[in-house]
Structure formats: C-alpha cells, structure tokens
C-alpha cells in the first residue's frame, strides 16, 4: 500500500523533502515505515530508530499503519 510520510526540520533536510511517498506491505507497522525511509538517499543522517507519530501521537515500532493514517518522523524536539 502507498503511504505519504511527513518529515520535519533536520530530517526533512537530510532526505531533501518535507514529505516522501513509500510503499508498504499489508499489515505494515511503524518499523516498516522506518525501514523504507532508511533505504533512501540521505537517510544515513537519521538515527536507526527515529521517533514516529501516527495520527499526531507518538507511536512505538509495532504500531500498525494503514494508508489512511497520518505518519510523521519526528527529529529530537527542541521547543521551549
């Protein structure tokens, strides 16, 4: 299935885009999203297990994702 993944800040710089489209197997999880991303150019600047949000909530690697979900990869936050 196709999925659009949101990127921010240094991760958007690393992959050269603020959104990337990936193709996932059925019953995919956050772990699969990260694996797809890591296969792209520039992804060596991402940590092995970056933080991910699904539908605007932090989500662990086993969280299932479907094509209707909003998935974002979250660099170390620096608010305040």
């Amino acid at each position: 299935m196709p999925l659009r993944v949101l990127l921010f800040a240094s991760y958007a710089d690393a992959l050269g885009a603020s959104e990337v489209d990936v193709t996932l197997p059925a019953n995919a999880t956050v772990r699969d999203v990260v694996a797809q991303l890591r296969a792209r150019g520039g992804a060596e600047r991402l940590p092995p297990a970056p933080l991910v949000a699904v539908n605007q909530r932090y989500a662990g690697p086993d969280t299932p994702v479907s094509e209707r979900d909003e998935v974002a990869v979250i660099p170390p936050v620096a608010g305040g």
Partner: protein
Amino acid sequence: MRSAIVDRALDPAGLAAAVSAPDCGAVLLFVGAVRETNDGREVSGIEYTAYRPMAERELADIVREAEARFAGARVAAEHRVGALAVGEASVAIAVGHGHRGAAYDASRYVIEEVKRRLPVWKRERYADGTREWVHAGTGAASALPGAR
C-alpha cells in the same frame, strides 16, 4: 485551561491574567526567550518550526495533565513559531493556584514536558551568517519521549 501555538509575539501578561482569580494566592509566570549565545557562539536569531496540529494537541494535553495532577491549578501556555530575534519570548506558561508549592510544581511540569515532547524545532542563525538545527539532547533515539 488555555493553550496555543502562535506566530505572533507572546502575551505573558494576558496569560497571567487568564489564570488569576479571587481564590488564587499565587500566580507563577515562566517566560523562555532567545539567548544571545549558545555553546559559545553568538546567536543573531532563531527560527522555530512545528508539526503544528500535533504541537497544538500535545500542548493542550500537557496543560490538561498539569491541571489534573495539581488539583486547583489554572494553567495557560503559548509557544511561538517563526523567526525570533534575541530577547524575544518563545514560550510562556502561567499557573494560578491557591498555594505556591503546587504553582511551582505545575509550572515546572509544563516546561519540562514541553521540552520533552512538543514537536517543535529550532534553527539558530549565528552572527557569522551560518545556521544550524539545535538538538536539545544528543539526538539519540534513546533520549526521546517513548511511544504512548
């Protein structure tokens, strides 16, 4: 409770007024501002960006959590995004409570959670013309907030 991600100058006095009430013995206002130096480098400004819908929900959650943990607390918080000059306020947190101990604890809770989990990033501009994303910690995944 009141919370917002905004792209205008913050209004700390307005937040403090929003949490004041006749049963309120203590009002605590925290304001975080852009510093002129970081790690010894001269900063000319900071550009804040956010994953805005998530940041708005996360800040509202943090404020609600503080009000639930510290019964009787009234909490209001704003975080600014966009280009900020040195000295401009990036975050303001106001807490009103009948007792000062709970006011301090609730205020501290909000700023620590903001630093830990609000999806906001900052890129510093330096006097030498360069700019860099600032990572509060090491950037290691292990230092990040866990999934919930």
